[in-house]
């Protein structure tokens, strides 16, 4: 019962490059660039009415554990103000990576805004499969969708939460 968790982002043309983001602080930003750094969002802004590049995230678990399952993901707090901003995700949490785009692709539903109660992130293709050895969850694909009402400048903060059981 001592798995080590870290966020991982895959970016670039499929099969993509995997980058470990760690767990703390501002891990990524939505922007018009497909890379794995939070730093350059201001030079790759999203115009009001446009979408960001998709961000393809996974939970990475390493270390000694029996099973990791019941993986849940939701948005704990929204941007404030959130006018003209919404974060979409792919509720099917795909297991296969596809090159991120700025159009409508995988991220078609609003991210849950409260604890979903049951697993909503797949592992090895299933909601109950879990991980029994070091590895990744399936993909959590996020995309910031804006409208023309979105204010110029930085978005402020949104807090995303990952919850899982470990035995």
């Amino acid at each position, binding site marked *: *019962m001592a798995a080590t*968790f870290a966020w991982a982002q895959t970016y670039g043309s499929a099969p993509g490059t995997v980058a470990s983001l760690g767990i703390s602080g501002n891990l990524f*930003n*939505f922007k018009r660039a497909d890379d794995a750094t939070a730093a350059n*969002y201001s030079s790759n802004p999203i115009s009001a009415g446009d979408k960001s590049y998709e961000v393809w995230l996974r939970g990475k678990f390493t270390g000694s554990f029996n*099973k990791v399952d*019941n993986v849940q993901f939701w948005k704990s707090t929204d941007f404030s103000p959130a006018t003209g901003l919404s974060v979409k995700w792919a509720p099917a949490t795909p297991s296969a990576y596809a090159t991120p785009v700025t159009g409508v692709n995988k991220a078609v539903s609003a991210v849950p805004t409260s604890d979903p109660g049951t697993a909503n992130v797949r592992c090895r293709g299933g909601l109950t499969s879990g991980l029994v050895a070091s590895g990744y969850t399936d993909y959590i694909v996020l995309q910031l969708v804006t409208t023309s009402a979105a204010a110029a400048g930085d978005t402020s*903060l949104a*807090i995303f939460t990952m919850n899982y059981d470990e035995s």
Partner: protein
Amino acid sequence: MENNKTIDLQNRKIDELLRKRQEGMFNFSESTKELIAMGVKIGKRDNGEITVPSSYLPYLDKFNESNLEFEWLARYNDGSILSQFEGEIQRNFKDIDQAKLKSIEFISNFSWSTDMVEKRIIVRLNWETGMFEFTNGFASQEVRAKCCVAPLIGDKKLILFARKRLSSAVGDASGELKEFINMMDEFFFYNRFVLGYQVPTGEKMAVIIEPNGDIKLFNE
């Protein structure tokens, strides 16, 4: 003197901003206090500091690498003990031999300043009787009534896992805003530990141990 509309409006605006600011500071302080009391750890990436109740500060350096507040310890009926952590060895659920189990307990993952060496038992599940003992955990009468009086009948299957929650902030604020308060660098984690058993009818008797030592019924 004559009233001046512009000056009045300015005063109202200043009052409104002062109110907002004061509310913000109050809400920030109050919510932080409540989060910490629940056992939520607030981490800051820039300096590695973790905000915990002040009474926990002496134990921070004794947390294991997973920042687990409690660890399990299984006692077998031959007198031997299996610990979750033993030096470099880390064990997990599948290492526990349920057929030999006498009791299983969650203990604090650090020494207490009052005795310097003791790892306190928070909860013990007597595997032979199916009853819980809340040695140093804070269990309500409701929990005690459910878990310390009448065990579930039948062969027991162990329930033992940690539910871990990690929240990270995404986004940023403009430089002018960050001048006043840097809220960009925080992350929040919260562990809960579940111990109990299930019998063939599907009934469960299990408790949640919160990181602050509070015990709740696990009622999933």
